[in-house]
């Protein structure tokens, strides 16, 4: 057992940490605290994962608790479920979350239903990189939330800051339900996100949205990388239009923190949902339905959304930029809503 890897001790040293390191810290701490936590996936061991998030973990925790699997997303996710039955708390890495599609059956039909079927709790976390913008094409950049949002029994977490990422990965590992944990790869090493985190143990509760910024004129609900684009848009809206926009970061997508959204809408009367994921069947739909159910009377304008277009994710920079929601789109949508 070697000493701990450099990148998991930033917070202990009081240094600001980035998004990837924050997740590594959370994972490392939970593995230190609870030997039932094990880590498996393609190349997570010797190599330390495609993004080096778990570099040094194998040397520290041993080959039993951190190990490289064959290329079998269903196989190792199902194995994680079996290990959970026997008392372990596996963390599964998808090298890219796009490959979870190969494990769709076991995730939705086995893991998600375990408690319901009487086969007990299912403390498995499935984590990995998601998201577009890195010119990685249709199969290394997907958002996977809507493939699973319709599956009762699952939780889906999608943080946007190092603090939330660390607090939520720790909460996810301690959770007795299967959790899908999405990490936007463009946030991993974004220097602007670095922040000093508490040096003591903390978790961020699953199921609670975060108010990024309070505002009176309009509610913007978003998550993941789009939180940062929304913040940029809101700055412009403030400067150029004098608008006071509230931003909510959902952080957890399932279960959805509806009350936080409804409460905000009851104050601002206008709602814009922004998501990186494609449009039709995106989470804006469920949010719209829930706000209708709970805050219809407060709405002074239609609920609007800014999303990716309804296509696979293209590779060429020109196409990918066209595909993705941009700050300009958010500004335009907010102006339209505010003027409604």
């Amino acid at each position: 057992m070697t000493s701990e890897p450099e990148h998991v001790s930033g917070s202990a040293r009081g240094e600001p940490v980035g998004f990837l390191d924050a997740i590594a810290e959370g994972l490392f701490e939970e593995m230190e605290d609870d030997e039932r936590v094990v880590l498996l996936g393609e190349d997570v061991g010797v190599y330390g994962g495609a993004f080096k998030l778990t570099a040094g973990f194998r040397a520290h925790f041993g080959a039993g608790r951190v190990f490289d699997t064959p290329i079998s997303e269903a196989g190792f996710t199902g194995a994680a479920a079996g290990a959970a039955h026997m008392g372990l708390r596996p963390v599964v890495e998808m090298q890219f979350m796009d490959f979870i599609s190969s494990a769709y059956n076991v995730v939705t039909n086995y893991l998600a239903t375990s408690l319901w079927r009487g086969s007990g709790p299912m403390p498995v976390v499935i984590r990995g990189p998601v998201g577009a913008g890195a010119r990685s094409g249709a199969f290394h950049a997907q958002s996977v939330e809507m493939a699973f949002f319709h599956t009762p029994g699952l939780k889906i977490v999608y943080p946007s800051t190092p603090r939330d990422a660390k607090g939520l990965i720790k909460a996810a590992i301690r959770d007795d339900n299967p959790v899908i944990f999405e990490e936007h790869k463009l946030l991993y090493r974004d220097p602007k996100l670095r922040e000093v985190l508490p040096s003591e143990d903390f978790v961020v509760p699953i199921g609670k949205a975060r108010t990024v910024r309070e505002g009176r004129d309009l509610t913007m609900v978003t998550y993941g990388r789009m939180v940062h684009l929304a913040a940029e848009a809101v700055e412009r809206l403030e400067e150029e239009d004098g608008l006071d926009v509230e931003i909510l970061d959902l952080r957890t997508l399932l279960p959805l923190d509806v009350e936080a959204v409804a409460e905000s809408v009851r104050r601002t009367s206008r709602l814009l949902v922004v998501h990186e994921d494609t449009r039709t069947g995106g989470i804006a739909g469920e949010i719209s339905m829930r706000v209708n159910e709970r805050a219809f009377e407060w709405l002074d304008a239609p609920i609007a959304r800014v999303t990716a277009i309804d296509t696979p994710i293209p590779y060429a920079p020109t196409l990918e930029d066209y595909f993705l929601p941009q700050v300009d789109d958010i500004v335009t949508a907010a102006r339209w809503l505010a003027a409604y």
Partner: protein
Amino acid sequence: MIRVTTTMCSSDASATQVTPEPSRAQLLEMCRLMHLARATEERLELLFRQGHVHGGVYRSLGQEGAAVGTAFALRARSDGTGDVMTYLIRDTGAIFTHGGEPIDYLRHYLARATSLSRGRETGVHFTDFDRGLVGPISHLGTMVEVMAGMTWAFRLRGEDRVGMAYLGDGGSSTGEFHEGLNFAAVQECPMVMVLEANGYAFSTPTRKQTRAKRLADKAVGYGIPGESVDGNDVVACYEAAARAVARARAGHGASLLEVVTYRRRGHAQHDAQDYVPPEELEHWASRDPIDLFEQRLLSEEWATPDELEDVAAGARTEAERAADEALAEPLPEGATALDRIYTDVTLPRPWTRLARPDPHDV
């Protein structure tokens, strides 16, 4: 006693230990378990015809020897420390052998509130971790992965427990079988993969399922030992399974065991089996595993006709009693459908069923 044994690719022959011969008591117990499986299924079939069972009903007629013999090689406990098993619709005998009881089996089919899934799940999809019984989902192949993971946990913690997973000829065509067994092989998990070659997957004969001559051939590609055994010979099944279990328990990893048997009924109750040549059915009826075993028990003078009569009658009575008891029990309350989706999140009642209906509240 015909035994088709083609051990292939056994990378650790040393592990193939000599298995102790079953005792007379054990032989009689196997006989009882086979009768119990058959009697319970017959009772279930009756309940189905009487309209008490709402979902599908599956029979293992002719496969009781394979199920009981293989499962008999496991260590059954009721305190959660024994070997583990995951089974499918035609493994009634294995379930009972590993400690499951007819009452739980019947309650489950009958969707009783008292059943292990509280009426939620169909057929044999029930779990009893204390006994090491892990219920499947319907999707074939998934449980191979799950069992690989369960036994991987044993290996990690240095426990000397073993896991057995059952799957059919049809199920072995699934990608999840491949991924699960490969995981178990590479990780040297203490797991025994039992493939039940019973001639058909629903209406599809095995030659349309795979071009391999024997399902045991599939072991080669995983670099694990594979063996094929006469599935209608309960003792041969026991012995072959015991070898595989011993190998697993000794730390030599996973193996594959093919039990060659035959599904003498249709896939489920509604299947008239008109795709099956009658001679085939007759042939296999003449090789009934209970009959064959009883003949042997008698000819080897391990049991008297009276003893065998008692065993069979006892099994019928137990099945009868269990059916009566289960039948008298209630179905679950509708609103219990809302609980245990998450360990920590409560589901609301549908808004249209509230005393004062209002969608705001959900």
